[in-house]
């Protein structure tokens, strides 16, 4: 369970603060009770959704609804996996777009971060600000011109096109993170490489890349989650049923065949859609939290 408790952010100082708080025992119990209550509230929607997904379809649409399943069935999952082109098609679409997004983000952000961190160049900070521009311009506003351009280039309704939009979203964060990652590598290592007469590209590959692995993992992790979850541009760009990503397919499940919502299948779909994110978060929490704190405020 310690993996769950995302590493100590700053253990030393915190120890101080909590000791300084000088909690008495009753207050400690009160805090514990509050933590349990809050955790229950936060987990309840996910647990209830999961329980609904394994009810038999008739129970899943019963009114009033049951908390604990009285029946058990995988029918909802079977139904959602057989929905239209098949859930696997949509998962495949989402995975492909997410993978392309990760590749694009890394291919652009790793060299850019390296260049910004390790070289002197004229107007460096101007370039850096331009690279952060997507932070200031909401991508929601750019979707119309992008759609028109992509249509001309044959990129509308394509996985690559959608991945490019997702890359726009993630690029500033990725570059920022990679710049920091490369800046934190000691100068001496680079000097040693220079003495050996290697060029900057070799230095990047043999010395910097291995040391920047945590940063690279974080960039990839965020790119995956952002792309897997992104809704608006997938809704606009992927207008062919077979190229839907998972979130768009879920909305179409909700609309139902004849206007009636298939509640059981919907919850099964919701569970499938959130599972990869939850698993990745639990496994790579250290990277996730570090990246989050690094990129969000500083």
């Amino acid at each position, binding site marked *: 369970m310690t993996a769950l408790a995302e590493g100590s952010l700053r253990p030393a100082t915190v120890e101080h603060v909590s000791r300084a708080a000088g909690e008495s025992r009753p207050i400690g119990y009160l805090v514990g009770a509050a933590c349990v209550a809050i955790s229950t509230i936060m987990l309840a929607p996910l647990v209830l959704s999961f329980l609904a997904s394994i009810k038999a379809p008739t129970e899943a649409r019963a009114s009033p609804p049951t908390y604990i399943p009285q029946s058990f069935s995988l029918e909802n999952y079977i139904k959602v996996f057989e929905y239209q082109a098949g859930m696997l098609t949509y998962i495949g679409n989402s995975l492909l777009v997410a993978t392309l997004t990760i590749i694009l983000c890394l291919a652009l952000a790793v060299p850019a971060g390296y260049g910004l961190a390790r070289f002197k160049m004229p107007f460096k900070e101007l*370039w850096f600000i331009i690279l952060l521009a997507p932070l200031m311009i909401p991508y*929601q506003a750019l979707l119309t011109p992008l759609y028109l351009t992509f249509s001309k280039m044959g990129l509308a309704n394509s996985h690559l096109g959608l991945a490019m939009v997702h890359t726009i979203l993630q690029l500033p964060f990725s570059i920022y993170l990679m710049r920091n990652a490369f800046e934190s590598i000691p100068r001496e290592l680079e000097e040693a490489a220079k003495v050996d007469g290697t060029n900057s590209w070799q230095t990047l590959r043999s010395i910097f890349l291995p040391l920047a692995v945590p940063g690279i993992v974080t960039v990839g992790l965020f790119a995956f989650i952002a792309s897997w979850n992104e809704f608006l541009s997938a809704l606009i760009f992927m207008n062919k049923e077979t190229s839907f990503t998972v979130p768009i397919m879920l909305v179409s499940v909700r609309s139902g065949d004849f206007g009636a919502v298939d509640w059981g299948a919907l919850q099964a779909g*919701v569970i499938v859609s959130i599972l990869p994110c939850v698993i990745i978060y639990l496994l790579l929490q250290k990277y996730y939290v570090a990246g989050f704190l690094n990129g969000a405020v500083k």
Partner: protein
Amino acid sequence: MIRALRKSEGFLYVLPALAFVAAFVLWPLAQLGYLSLTDTSLLGGGEFIGFENYIKAFEDKSFWRALQFTLKYTVFITPLLMGLGFALALLTAPNRPVRQITRAIIFLPVVIGIGSSSLLWFWLFDQQVGLFNRILVDIGILAEPAVWFTKADMALLAVTISITWKVIGFGMLLFVAGIQSINGEIGEAALIDGGNYWQRVWYIILPLSLRVILLTTLISVIGSMLAFEQFYIMTGGNPRGQTFTSVYWIYQNSFISFKLGYGAALSIILTLIILVFSSLQVILSNRSPSQ
């Protein structure tokens, strides 16, 4: 010659990313500006019409209503997210196992998709099959299951509840980091001075967290001003178009009615509004350009 090459070597690494941003952010922005001055629709058109779209936007009651509703949503949810987020941060900041696990659980919904979470809550709020309704009835808050999405205020409340659940961990985690970076000695000094816990919160933790609070508020405000998915999925803009947000209204004009030129003008107006907040965010951020 060699020297010039050396000097531009670093730039070559930055160039691909710069080209990407130029091609897919800056150029589209310029196109957006031009589009907003035309009567382009997906069916054709494209005549230059000057500022007609902007004049139309200022007279468009639906647009103002959407903008107003977005502001109302933002003003409603931001204090809630910040206040609750800070309270949760105070509770979970000390690195003790129970609190760390609670922190991890509160943050969990942040990583799931807003589409998935909106569909999940759409089900929880349903009058017939929704368990949120059943819980409220069982604990005696409601006499019978409520219909959440036929009144604009109820719909706003429902969306606010679902989004609070979804993003409360975001602010909390930033506040936790802020609180943890406050030097323990300051707290101890206050302890020696005889300050109790709430005095320490009020006189030390809160003032020293001010910058983080301000930044988080800006991030949160920008997010709320750009809200779309939660309303698209949960309310569909209803009842009677009362819950359209700005982005939703732009989407509606551009991609449902195909009025691309007009949608572009609305996008430019929204971008300018967002720019005010995001510039503040960049200015407040740690990394000043001179660094």
